[in-house]
């Protein structure tokens, strides 16, 4: 059929099964917004900042496993969105972002709201397009969705000049994607798989090292089966929380800079790392030359460039995890789980020596208590988003995650301001789960305008602000490594968070005791509108244990031992 470029965008969204689009209009994208007005195939959520639109689409994608979609205008609309694109790129979030561009005749003339959008998005997207003819749009859009969700997922940006959205051309979406130059490797090499299984069978102290790729590939179930059938203990990266349930006996914990003692020691003592969809990030490995020093490495990943990038893989397997692990499961009988009994005991001893815990030794509430308490009260019924800082690490350490896609955080880029809009996207994707955002007094102000979005669209996100009157994570480094020179991290100047939420039509609580917190959370869940729960917490609490930047995993700063009451 002959339709306009703008109509093609709408038709494509509907054909792709898109139900929610996050965005913000402006001059160059108006033709598309005009078509949005006329349709009822999907819902458009108007965020109050383009960065928030992208984070919301990320939250939607991470919680639902579908491709997130966002739409923005040219110039400042696009540049506002760049942080979100970079965030999605670093965390491999499948996403299609459409931006308006000035008309073709104005490109290159420094026209009003013109910016070289594809030039800027190139290093922070999986792929991008500038569409110069509406006749190309069906193919480009089809490729965009395909590229976003296949292989190692990631954001794809499509920039469309205004006159192209007005141009009439033939639209047929019933076409095959035919990309000769892009064919992701799905099946693992059987010979490599066989060798890897043999290595596992021969190892004395093997350890699963699970990364966010397990969740992206939808492989959590087969990975759980693999772990249980082999009886091999597992550590998770920040991005892999929820692959194994918190109460799984084989889950050692999270590893890395703020990982548990037992996880980091297990990684230091293992003789075979079984890396699944993890990328040996510096926040995980600490000092590379000391990382898993005596171990061989199996590395399964869909992205060949992730393999042997930082740590040499003795058994590299390129392929989709779900496929590879399913193939591995067929040879599982070669592995004798009893063999690892003493290794499992060694790890339990590590955990008993320095358990992941905290001391309730302050007049003020401890932030870790708050996280634990939310876990006790809501557990599986909540999806957990976070901002970036100490609160993020405490949430990762102390929340009892029980399923994949329950945990939504900005890992690779570490973007303050991610949490609230992401939690809006999460709630839009999973309306039956409570959407919690653990945030800090610093981070929440970085996308606080989303109160309006949440109120308008009746998306009841509960923001739990762990208020320490500090840019806490930076303050912690200053305390530990800069001789307590707390340069520009004191956030004594603060808004009234309760009134702030109320000003937008949300609700707010300020709590200082356990009883008040319980009551506030209960009330917020019942009231079902966007909420700020400001919790006054101990200001100088540090995230422990900690591997100082560049240090070795086995050289951790530990929580001081105290008699627990």
């Amino acid at each position, binding site marked *: 059929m002959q339709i306009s470029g703008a109509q093609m965008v709408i038709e494509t969204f509907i054909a792709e099964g898109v139900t929610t689009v996050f965005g913000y209009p402006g001059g160059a994208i108006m033709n598309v917004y005009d078509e949005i007005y006329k349709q009822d195939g999907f819902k458009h959520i108007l965020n109050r900042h383009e960065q928030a639109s992208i984070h919301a689409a990320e939250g939607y994608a991470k919680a639902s496993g579908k491709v997130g979609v966002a739409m923005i205008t040219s110039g400042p609309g696009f540049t506002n969105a760049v942080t979100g694109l970079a965030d999605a790129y670093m965390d491999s979030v499948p996403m299609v972002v459409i931006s308006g561009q000035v008309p073709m005749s104005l490109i290159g003339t420094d026209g009003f709201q013109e910016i070289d959008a594809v030039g800027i998005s*190139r290093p922070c997207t999986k792929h991008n397009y500038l569409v110069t003819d509406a006749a190309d749009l069906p193919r480009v859009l089809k490729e965009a969705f395909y590229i976003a969700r296949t292989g190692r997922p990631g954001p794809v940006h499509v920039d469309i000049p205004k006159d192209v959205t007005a141009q009439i051309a033939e639209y047929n979406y019933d076409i095959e994607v035919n990309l*000769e*130059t892009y064919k992701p490797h799905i099946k693992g090499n059987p010979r490599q798989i066989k060798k890897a299984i043999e290595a596992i069978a021969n190892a004395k102290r093997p350890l699963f090292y699970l990364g966010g790729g397990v969740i992206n590939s939808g492989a959590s179930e087969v990975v759980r089966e693999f772990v249980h059938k082999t009886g091999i203990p597992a550590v998770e990266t920040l991005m892999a929380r929820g692959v194994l349930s918190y109460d799984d006996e084989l889950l050692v914990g999270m590893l890395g800079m703020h990982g548990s003692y037992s996880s980091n020691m297990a990684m230091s003592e293992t003789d075979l*790392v079984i890396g699944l969809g993890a990328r040996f990030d510096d926040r995980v490995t600490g000092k590379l030359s000391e990382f898993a020093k005596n171990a061989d490495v199996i590395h399964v990943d869909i992205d060949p460039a992730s393999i042997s990038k930082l740590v040499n893989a003795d058994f590299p397997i390129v392929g989709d995890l779900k496929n590879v692990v399913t193939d591995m499961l067929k040879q599982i009988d070669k592995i004798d789980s009893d063999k690892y009994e003493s290794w499992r005991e060694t790890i339990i001893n590590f955990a008993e020596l320095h358990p992941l815990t905290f001391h309730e030794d302050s007049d003020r509430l401890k932030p870790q208590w708050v996280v634990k308490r939310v876990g006790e009260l809501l557990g599986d019924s909540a999806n957990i988003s976070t901002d970036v800082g100490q609160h993020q690490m405490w949430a990762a350490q102390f929340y009892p995650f029980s399923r994949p896609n329950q945990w939504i955080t900005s890992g690779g880029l570490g973007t303050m301001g991610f949490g609230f809009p992401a939690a809006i996207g999460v709630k839009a994707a999973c309306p039956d789960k409570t959407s919690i955002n653990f945030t800090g007094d610093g981070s929440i102000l970085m996308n606080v305008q989303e109160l309006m979005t949440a109120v308008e669209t009746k998306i009841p996100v509960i923001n739990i602000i762990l208020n320490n009157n500090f840019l806490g994570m930076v303050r912690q480094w200053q305390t530990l490594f800069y001789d307590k020179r707390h340069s520009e991290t004191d956030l004594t100047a603060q808004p009234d968070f309760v009134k702030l939420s109320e000003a937008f039509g949300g609700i707010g609580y300020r709590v200082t005791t356990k009883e008040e917190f319980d009551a506030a959370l209960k009330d917020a869940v019942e009231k079902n509108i966007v909420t700020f729960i400001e919790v006054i917490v101990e200001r100088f609490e540090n995230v422990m244990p900690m591997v100082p930047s560049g240090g070795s995993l086995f050289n951790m700063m530990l929580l001081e031992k105290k008699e627990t009451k």
Partner: protein
Amino acid sequence: MTVNSENTERRVVSVIVVNEASVLSRITNLFSGRGYNITSLTVAPIPDSKYSRLTIVTAGSIRVIEQITKQLHKLIPVLKVYEHADLVEKEMALVKFPISENLNEISILCEAYNGKIVNSGGNMIIAMVADEPKRVGHFLDAIKRYNPKEIVRSGAVALER
């Protein structure tokens, strides 16, 4: 585990890419963004196809070269990446000399490096050589005493044997 070692080597990488807008900047952005070296880069369409061939001379440790080829491969419009071990490599250079120099000697030198005098004007001549990049370097050293006024090198092109 072993951490990869860091000995820098010169390498030639050929990349076959779809001939489309901004594909060259995708490649050069990748190099600058990840801190890889480009010593030289040539590009031209492959006859009767929708592809172009780039020849990139780069330098890095084995680990870096491996990453370069993998990261290039990750770019959507990249069809193939060859990292050459056994190859025929050629480069061209053009040099402008004052006509007052000893043209005979220059001409003989050129011949030794697969070249000749290709153009002459009122007060200048232009000589061309085409040879292995290293030998082109030798040629350029040798002609210094004839007061070359301008030199351009094409960058290397290469084919696997």
